């Protein structure tokens, strides 16, 4: 017994005699993860997570060792976005946990279902400022859906199950589970104590009330002369794409998306007017502005989509459907509301929507389309946009693109035409530079039979450049396209347009040889000019393993049109001199 106690203290596990029936906290965690469908964990170890890493050797769950905990969270996020499953990331306590914060916040803003497991010092040391102790629950409170501290090994299983339930139910989001080391090494019989709390809320609308609201929204929709649907990220999360597509076709209703909603419905069916907001399509923005009825589905009307809310869609009656009651009417006052699972709501609405041709509305939209094309709104992504389309043309249809942040993000989301709802991954809510490479790692691991291309700017690329090591170590065939303009391009554009071209703190310079850097990490790479990219694209396409394509771009290549801060959705500017 004494020996057993000593061994246990050192993190060893005894599987003899009476211990046989019992499981340690670490084992319970891994078993529960497996039961919840977890196949991979993106993580980074520390002394406080070693009990888990040790047991992982016997688990069917595959652990990917990332090179930074922020990247572990982004990878789990990318995995979740690409697959629709819950992503799992793991870090040690203290610095490991704080490194994950940006990744957790990114997942929170875009409602990605994520379980963040963090190591913690032993319970008797909590609050003693012990080595590598951090109040990660306190730090992440505003950026998780919920967080748990595992106090007792008996609660591990039920807590973890609840964490999964929370992460994927309702409006999904990240849930953090803080795991003191002694809880990981303590043991108990599985399933011994349930964690009973009243976590379900009493905000459910009755089915009858719901049906009334659905009928009412359908009536408005049928009556409207200039209706439009706004599709937010919630439509993908709620797996309602097919249903919504059916409703759109039946009622012949044009739609726009938010940035997060891009790809929800096959882009090329004629009803898609593009995405709205600051960097959105002119046609989408102007059509919203002139519509008389808006059905908003799975969007919270972020300020990026609405621009100046006072002037947003001044003529429209607005109906909003969302599963998250707190998203309804939060940013924009709505006239009709429905708190519901989106798929259920739309399915019930389809038979109530009339078949209608709406010739006048489409005529007007088509005229606007021609006008905006004349104004040059399509060329706004310049040669970079063309290059992105060229890459899409040579890649298999189901390729997933992952955008970073900056000009490159806008170029990507405006030029890549996703063929499946999950065909374009981008972090809309946080705008986290450095997202694309680690998220692409997660996406690739999630959808191994599909190609994944990450697009990034040089600034964003440097932010998680260490993940090239992960890519080459696991030989993950991820393609990376870095637009190198030697600058923080989007910052440069803002300074150019709104700060009298007084450029400061935006030049990164051209001293780095990215091709050599990539090769140094063990990844094949090539360099092309954005105006003459064919050979590079072909080489990338032909390479079986990972490949980095550095694309040289003129720093004055910006993105147009855009809505200057504070203006309304129809006050776009088209060029530098506007």
């Amino acid at each position, binding site marked *: 017994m004494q020996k057993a106690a000593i061994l246990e203290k050192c993190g060893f596990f005894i599987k003899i005699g009476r211990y046989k029936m019992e499981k340690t906290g670490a084992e319970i965690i891994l078993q529960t993860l497996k039961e919840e469908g977890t196949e991979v964990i993106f993580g980074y170890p520390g002394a406080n997570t070693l009990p888990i890493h040790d047991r992982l050797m016997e688990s069917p769950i595959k652990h990917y060792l990332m090179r930074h905990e922020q990247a572990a969270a982004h990878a789990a996020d990318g995995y979740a976005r690409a697959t629709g499953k819950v992503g799992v990331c793991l870090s040690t306590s203290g610095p490991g946990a704080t490194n994950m914060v940006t990744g957790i916040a990114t997942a929170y803003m875009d409602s990605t279902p994520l379980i963040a497991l963090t190591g913690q010092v032993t319970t008797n040391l909590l609050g003693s400022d012990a080595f590598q102790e951090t109040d990660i*629950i*306190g730090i992440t*409170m*505003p950026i998780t*859906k*919920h*967080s748990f*501290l595992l106090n007792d090994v008996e609660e591990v299983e039920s807590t973890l199950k609840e964490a999964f339930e*929370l992460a994927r139910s309702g409006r999904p989001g990240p849930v953090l589970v803080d795991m003191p080391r002694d809880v990981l090494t303590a043991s108990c019989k599985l399933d011994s104590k349930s964690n*009973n*709390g*009243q*976590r379900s*809320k*009493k*905000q459910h609308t009755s089915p009858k009330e719901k049906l009334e609201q659905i009928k009412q929204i359908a009536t408005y929709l049928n009556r409207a002369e200039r209706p439009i649907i706004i599709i937010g990220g919630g439509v993908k999360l709620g797996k309602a794409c097919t249903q919504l597509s059916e409703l759109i076709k039946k009622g012949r209703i044009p739609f726009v998306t938010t940035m997060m909603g891009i790809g929800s419905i096959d882009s090329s069916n004629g009803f898609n007017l593009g995405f709205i907001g600051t960097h959105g399509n002119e046609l989408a923005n102007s059509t919203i502005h002139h519509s008389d009825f808006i059905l908003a589905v799975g969007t919270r009307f972020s300020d990026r989509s609405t621009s100046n809310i006072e002037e947003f869609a001044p003529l429209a009656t607005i109906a909003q459907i969302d599963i*998250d*009651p*707190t*998203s309804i*009417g*939060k940013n924009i006052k709505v006239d009709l509301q429905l708190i519901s699972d989106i798929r259920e709501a739309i399915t019930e609405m389809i038979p109530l929507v009339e078949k209608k041709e709406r010739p006048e509305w489409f005529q007007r939209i088509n005229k606007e389309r021609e006008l905006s094309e004349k104004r040059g709104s399509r060329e706004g992504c310049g040669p970079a946009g063309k290059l992105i389309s060229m890459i899409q043309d040579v890649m298999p249809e189901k390729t997933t693109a992952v955008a970073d942040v900056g000009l490159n993000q806008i170029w990507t989301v405006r030029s890549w035409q996703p063929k499946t709802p999950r065909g374009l991954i981008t972090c809309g809510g946080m705008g986290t530079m450095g997202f694309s490479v680690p998220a692409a790692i997660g996406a690739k691991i999630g959808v191994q039979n599909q190609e994944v291309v990450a697009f990034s700017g040089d600034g964003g690329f440097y932010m998680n450049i260490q993940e090239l090591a992960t890519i080459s170590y696991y030989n993950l065939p991820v393609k990376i396209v870095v637009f190198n303009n030697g600058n923080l391009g989007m910052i440069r554009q803002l300074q150019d347009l709104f700060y009298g071209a007084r450029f400061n703190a935006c030049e990164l310079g051209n001293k780095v040889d990215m091709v050599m850097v990539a090769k140094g990490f063990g990844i094949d790479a090539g360099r092309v000019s954005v105006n003459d990219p064919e050979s590079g694209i072909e080489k990338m396409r032909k390479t079986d393993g990972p490949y980095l394509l550095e694309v040289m771009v003129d720093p004055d290549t910006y993105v147009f049109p855009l809505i200057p801060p504070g203006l309304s959705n129809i006050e776009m500017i088209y060029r530098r001199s506007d």
Partner: protein
Amino acid sequence: MNGEEHLISMLVNNKPGVLSRVAGVFGRLGYNIESLCVAATTDPEISKITLVSKSNSDSTERTKKQLEKLVDVVEVTELGQIQSVQRELILIGIKLQQEHRAEIARAVDIFGCKIISMKSDYYILEVVDNKEKIETVLNYFAPLGIEEIARTGVIALQKDK
């Protein structure tokens, strides 16, 4: 912080960390919490939080939404003046000066305060009433030399349920 006072009543799970999550919402939006009362309800798993904070109406809506997002918050209600009864308890310690003795006795009578401790020259009075009345009492006693006060903050119940 400008704005009117808003009285918010919440049912929350009686668990560690819940109060700091709730308070965190106000801190994040830059609103001060003017008063806060928390205790378990008849169901020991559920606590009631009564909270007064200053903000304008729009942002109160936003605050409520953020509170409702919290997993451990079961229900959030904003209570108006009309639909609720409100009470606060305050203890007032007063150094007694002989010339004020009669006046204090009279005030205790008028305001319905209770003297709950009386040492040779130090009184402690208890007042239970709504906020307005409590302010009146405080204003009255202020010139007589209040040494110390402790107040619970407002608790409230909806008049009809």
